[in-house]
């Protein structure tokens, strides 16, 4: 039988407390219980990276984590990227300006990966960027414009 647990998380700066089944994945919890549908599910086995979010500042695959494993954590999803006034984050702006997305489904995962990368390595070179992005699959763009988007975002974040 499914057992339930209470989970406390802070998501995009907002505190939530909820009772969830122990087997519920973190991405299902975010999407179904909290209504944060920006994080997408692509493969459900940790390969495609579409479900990537930040947990305590580090990227995780929310499709292969359980909600209960996030108890007490601080999470950030794509909904937390834009400024409170709705102004796009420089990473979002850069993806738009460099045509770093087409269908947009893998994009939240790429944005969150880029967020951690540039927070930790603001001067990341091309090889480092590729290394970081190699865990995210995109079927539309061919990656090159995504790479250019990340480079532009890095420049903009260094010179705000």
């Amino acid at each position, binding site marked *: 039988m499914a057992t339930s647990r209470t989970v406390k998380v802070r998501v995009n700066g907002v505190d939530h407390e909820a009772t969830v089944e122990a087997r519920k994945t973190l991405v299902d919890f975010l999407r179904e219980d909290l209504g944060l549908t920006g994080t997408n599910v692509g493969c459900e*086995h940790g390969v495609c990276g579409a479900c990537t979010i930040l947990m305590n500042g580090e990227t995780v695959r929310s499709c292969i984590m359980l909600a209960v494993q996030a108890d007490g954590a601080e999470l950030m999803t794509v909904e937390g990227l834009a400024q409170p006034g709705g102004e796009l984050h420089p990473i979002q702006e850069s993806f738009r300006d460099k045509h770093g997305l*087409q*269908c947009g489904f893998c994009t939240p995962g790429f944005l969150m990966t880029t967020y951690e990368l540039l927070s930790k390595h603001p001067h990341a070179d091309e090889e480092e960027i590729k290394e970081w992005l190699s865990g995210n699959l995109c079927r539309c763009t061919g990656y090159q414009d*995504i790479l250019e988007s990340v480079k532009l975002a890095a420049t903009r974040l260094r010179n705000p």
Partner: protein
Amino acid sequence: MAAAEPKLPEQLPVTQPRHVGKDSPRMEDPLMVTGKVEYGNDIRAPGMLHAAILRSPHAHALIKSIDASRAEKLPGVAAVLTGKEVKSWSRPVFGVPEGWTGYALAVEKTHWVGEPVAVIAATDRYIAEDALELIEVEYEPLETVADALKAVTGEGPYVLEGKQSNVAYDRKFSFGDVPGSFAAADVIVRERFRWHRSSGNPIETCVCIADWNPVTGMLTLRGSHRSPHLILPALVISLGVSSQQVRIIQSPLGGSFGVKTFARYVILISLMAKKLKGRAVKWTEDRIEHLIGSSTHAWDRHYECALALKQDGTVTGMKMELIDDLGAFSEWLAIGMLLKPLLCLGSCYRIPNVEYACKGLVTNKTPQGPLRAFGLPPHFWVLEQLLDVAAKKLGLERNEIRRRNFIKKEEFPYVSPSGNVYDSGDYEGSLKLLLEKSGYDRLLKEQEKARSEGRLVGLGVVSSIEPGLTGPPMLALAAPRIFSRTSSPEGILVRIDGFGKLIAELGFPPGGQSQHSFVRQILADYFGVELEDVQVITVDSLSMQPSTGPISSSMAIALTGAVLGAAARLADKLKRVAAVMLEARADDIELLDGQFRVRGVPGKTLAAAQVSQFMMARPDLLPEGIDGNPEATYVWNPPDRTIPDERGFGRYSVTAAGAQHLCMVEVDRATGQVKILKYVMVDDCGVRLNPSVVRGMLMGGMAHGVGAALLEEYVYDENGQMLTSSYMDYLLPTIMEVPAAEEHEMCTPSPIAPLGVKGVGEGALHTTPAAVLCAVNDALEPLGIRITEAPMSPLRVWKALQGASR
């Protein structure tokens, strides 16, 4: 239409186009980068249930019994649907040729691993999946046929009930004097090739939310299915519903690549909704289901080919015989992928005598479904390989043999042996540009140096065309009763409100191709407004104009035609109103830069907003035949297409984009891994409405092509068991495998398509596999080995290397 359709951007009613032809920002992006776009799986309807599908573990088995009683009793389970009900409520899934499909759920037997056997609806997906485990199915495994070469022999087992054969389609097309060309040839090259099945694998899987109201009889469908006007007939035929009682509301698509044009799962979830009597049910395909079960595999081909050549390298004849393993059913439009090469058998080359013999076989594998480029990539790969082999045999340089056979610039419009027309092109000029831009001579020297060091470095330089806006005439070859028509309509509604803002209603949602953005660009230029002044929305199947959807790179062509037609009609209405306001003859009114004015009378102008306000406010003053509605619709259809005659001779497509690609690879002797060192492409897709969007389509197509060439493969064992049901086994290219490519533009505007555009949405997938695979074989040449199977996966290359060293 009042005015002739503009054939170039300069002919738009604007002094200088400000948006068309420019890298204008996409209107789709703000929602997408903020996570606010509502994809199918984000939809929640009141009281909605969730479906899960039980799938066959056997490739071929009789269903002796199904006991769902334990599943039905599980708290939260609302209903279980099995084959018995599906058989009584529906007809088999639509397919071409007719009679080669099964029901949406297995009834008496299962035909492939992954075929749906039962569907459960429950209050939550977790419970629905729990309940799947409580269904008891008694199977009696049957002998399996999972190899098309065995299936073609005519001996059983037979995949489909009631059939005494596994050959669903068998047709030979012949143009010119093929035996004569081979008899007179100086040199003949023959090869066998094998292309293994792969598919599109959009990152978003398929989603369907169905709601069948028992009181009104209305079936409402939401989700990721696209091209409602294609899905609707399949629903009407299979479900027996009335067309106006089906309402399809499309969500933005997280990629499709053709695979979401399909109707099987829509039929299945609709039937579950019928059983639920008014409660909406959502099914979201999981990745394993997508890989094994969703009829999205494509091109499982065995080729036997030959080229006849003169000593100087002129190709005089070609024979191509192929067997395509369609999987268990010849479902939906999959057969069209065997027929599409007929449009461009000789690709960029003038090959006067051609024979094309194709067989579609059913086997106990996942059925095929439509996929980007629709069957051409293997065809082009085979042809380019043959040219490379012939060049070596004749002692010709790889580019020289191509040059000698290219259709020349002055030969356009070119009528191919099968009657199809290529609109324009400059293949030789494109190749020249490619060789210059890539520094070809330098690359040859680099290769020579690498080889002298014992490194396996190879080059591939190949060509292809992309036929834009193909369609029904091609399918008439397999189903004349249904498809003997020349239309692929694309319609749009354009209106202007009282504030001068424009609204366009389309029949399809954002899906990566950026069509909403270029509709906005064209309208902004046409009416001289800012991009922000144009709104573009997707409407449902009951509201939309006749529409075919983004098929066969039709969007830029057909939608541009539709927008221009509707804009002209709207402008014409407004001109007649402006004539009243300006006290002039309607014929004397012109629209320029968004202003209506009397021709030759400067200074007296009306903004479009003034005219539309007047139109809605003063019906008493409107001229005869003009109502108070500032809107117009237009349905664009491809011109000059013909239905094929009995030989298969016909005009099938509208445009022919050309592509020349260069690829340089290095093969690792120890591991068989292929690294792409350099990739350069020249593309001629006529006028580019939004260059960065075109580049995106090409780069994405190239990435898809790299996957198809080197990584992606659905592998089955001899019993039809699938061995690649996760992304651990089915390998997709990452940023590490996809090279940073250079892309250069050649532009020969289409003389036929509006604004001179050519379809390019299927993109580089046509050309890239050939470029990569030719390069790998060139790299292996010093070892005296060639690989004639795609993908040239690391394992396959490694095995070939092992063979060479022994």
